[in-house]
């Protein structure tokens, strides 16, 4: 594992009106690391993730991607940097007016200016990787939720990103489809992809994460190796949260 810093967050604050969502967040994601962000709802996990590629504009603080502070670049530079950070959403957000393969090819052709046949090759390879090659010409509406999320992952990967951000990728899925998506993510982590995953899937976090960050009330209250955090949480809130989850399982 390399020590190259991919993402670095310093004194990040985010307010919506008077509502403080993120309070002085600091953290570093190194190349090849898998970070899982857990915590109760309303903790600010999604907002934190969306601040990493500036879908939400931080109120103050720095978000550095490979050394460049995203809060101080112009729109054009931001667009250029964003293409190197893949994002997967809770609600998939596939483009319903395009077929699966068109969803995958759009950004490589329009942003990276790849030729159609190159984009096609990459797209088919990725669809094969997520096990959906035979759905290339289907429209998203004809796919199950799990299939749509796998396509969404493939679409993000088609831009060959340095880091993948996952915003509760399995929360909108029927339980029987959660497995297929986690499996794809697991494979991705094994291949060395740098990942930041906001999730409620504690099993996945335990198995795949290099580090788990526990968030509550807009703070990161504890960060640790998964075994440590799940088996022996230090923070009271973390103890409480993990206790409840284990009870429910």
């Amino acid at each position, binding site marked *: 594992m390399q020590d190259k810093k991919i993402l670095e967050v310093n004194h990040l604050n985010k307010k919506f009106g008077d509502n403080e969502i993120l309070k002085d967040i600091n953290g570093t994601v190194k190349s090849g690391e898998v970070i899982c962000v857990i915590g109760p709802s309303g903790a600010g996990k999604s907002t934190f993730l969306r601040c990493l590629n500036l879908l939400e504009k931080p109120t103050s603080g720095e978000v550095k991607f490979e050394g460049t502070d995203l809060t101080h670049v112009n729109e054009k530079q931001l*667009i250029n940097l964003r293409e190197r*950070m893949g*994002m997967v959403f809770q*609600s998939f957000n596939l*483009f319903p007016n395009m077929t699966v393969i068109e969803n995958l090819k759009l950004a490589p052709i329009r942003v990276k200016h790849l030729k159609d046949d190159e984009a096609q090759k990459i797209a088919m390879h990725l669809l094969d990787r997520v096990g959906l090659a035979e759905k290339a010409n289907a*429209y998203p509406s004809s796919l199950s939720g799990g299939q749509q999320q796998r396509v969404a992952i493939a679409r993000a990967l088609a831009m060959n990103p340095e880091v993948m951000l996952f915003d509760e990728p399995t929360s909108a899925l029927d339980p029987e489809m959660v497995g297929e998506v986690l499996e794809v993510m697991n494979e991705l982590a094994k291949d060395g992809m740098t990942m930041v995953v906001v999730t409620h899937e504690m099993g996945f976090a335990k198995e795949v994460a290099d580090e788990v960050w526990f968030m509550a009330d807009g703070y990161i209250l504890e960060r640790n190796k998964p075994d440590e955090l799940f088996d022996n949480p230090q923070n009271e809130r973390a103890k409480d949260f993990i206790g409840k989850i284990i009870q429910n399982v």
Partner: protein
Amino acid sequence: MKKNLKAIIQIFIMIAAVFTLTTVFSNSAAAADTSLQRVKERGELIMVTSPDYPPYEFQVNKNGKDKIVGMDIDVAKKVAKDLHVKLVIKSMNFDSLLVAIQTGKADMAIGGINPTAARRQSVDFSKIYYSGGQSFLINSSDVNKYKSAKNLKGATIGAQTGTLQYGLAKKKIPNSTVKGMDKSTDLVLALKTHKIDALGIEKPSAEAYVKNDPSLKMISSGYHLNKNEIGAAIAFKKGSGSLVAAVNKSIDQIKKQNLTEQYLAGAGKYMKVNTVNTSMFHYWKYFAKGVEYTILISVVSTFFGVLIGVILALMRFSKQKWLRGLAISYTEFIRGTPLMVQVLFVYFGIGVVVNIPALISGMIAVSLNSGAYVAEIIRGGINSVAKGQTEAAASLGLSKGDLMRFVILPQAFKNIWPALGNEFISLIKESSIVSIIGVTDLIYQLNIVRADTYRGVMPIFVAMLLYFVMTFALTRVLNHFEGKMKHAG
């Protein structure tokens, strides 16, 4: 609220500027009398008329070709011949005739126009070339009730809006209710269906109707009028002294040789041609031409309307405040004024500065109008696309332009397709308003057929069917595309 007020004030300033400009232009044009010289240099005498007033002016179908004929046309031909220029005939609503010469759309207007004192204030008149006299048309069944005009006391009397007959009925028939309509054909129909008791009309026209329709009778108006109120003269733009003088020479000859009698006889023959066969099939070419123009205007205006609509909608999402303001003001203003006024403004108002032909003016006005509505529909469509789509596109590094082009607009169009279809369908129907500036669309042609055949209802029914066929066909096409888009996700 404050912002809106500012926008409204801006609009008023804009309008005031255009208005001032047009007045300045029209005044400066009137300053030097080059009217005769201009006609001679051009080699053409442009005349406007409203050809729905037999025997003064009306359309006939001669050897398969539409032709405007009548006594007035013969007078105009004689004038043109004496000036050694070619006669060009433009047609439009009677209401618009005087505006057309004031705004330079034509050199002169003819159409049984009575040179009243009020009209003399805004236009110049030639000498009177014909004195017809005023009369009333009544239903044959009322012959005993209305033996003379005196019996019309307290009756409901119809007359063409903007005509002398309208004013006279108001002034001279005690306790009467006067109903105005644009077309004499509509008035005759109103009479026959007892919506009005009598119709004030020039004597030669009344005679023509009585000859062609046994259910109608004519009574004398009994008005005591001076020459100006019963005679017909040719109207010119103010300050056209030289042209008026030249035309008066022709009129002197017409009067000396009593040519109008000859002209009226000729008109009578044409009217017989028209009424030999009043079946709607006989007039299919009229309707075909109307359909052709209605479709032409609709297609062109739909295209430009959508184009303008997309541009305005994108302006609404612009970062530039002034672009947003401009789009909002435009939409508010266009939606807040009637299409009819916009058509008149483009043709006559802007026409003072740049001379735009009627058909193009109509297309411009309808496109501009439709654009405002389409813009609002598209704006709604863009707002209806889920926010996640924008975020997904942004996370892939797509530019704003690509986001709109590939992601937002295709989905927006799918969502708004039914609303857009609705707009297209109403555009076909609303385009009929261009008939007031003489564009030969279906409504215009319908009125011509009604004037020619003396049949009030049947042509309306035919036009109704034709409109329905057009909109129904469009609905099928729209549904076809809607089905296609549904398939695509």
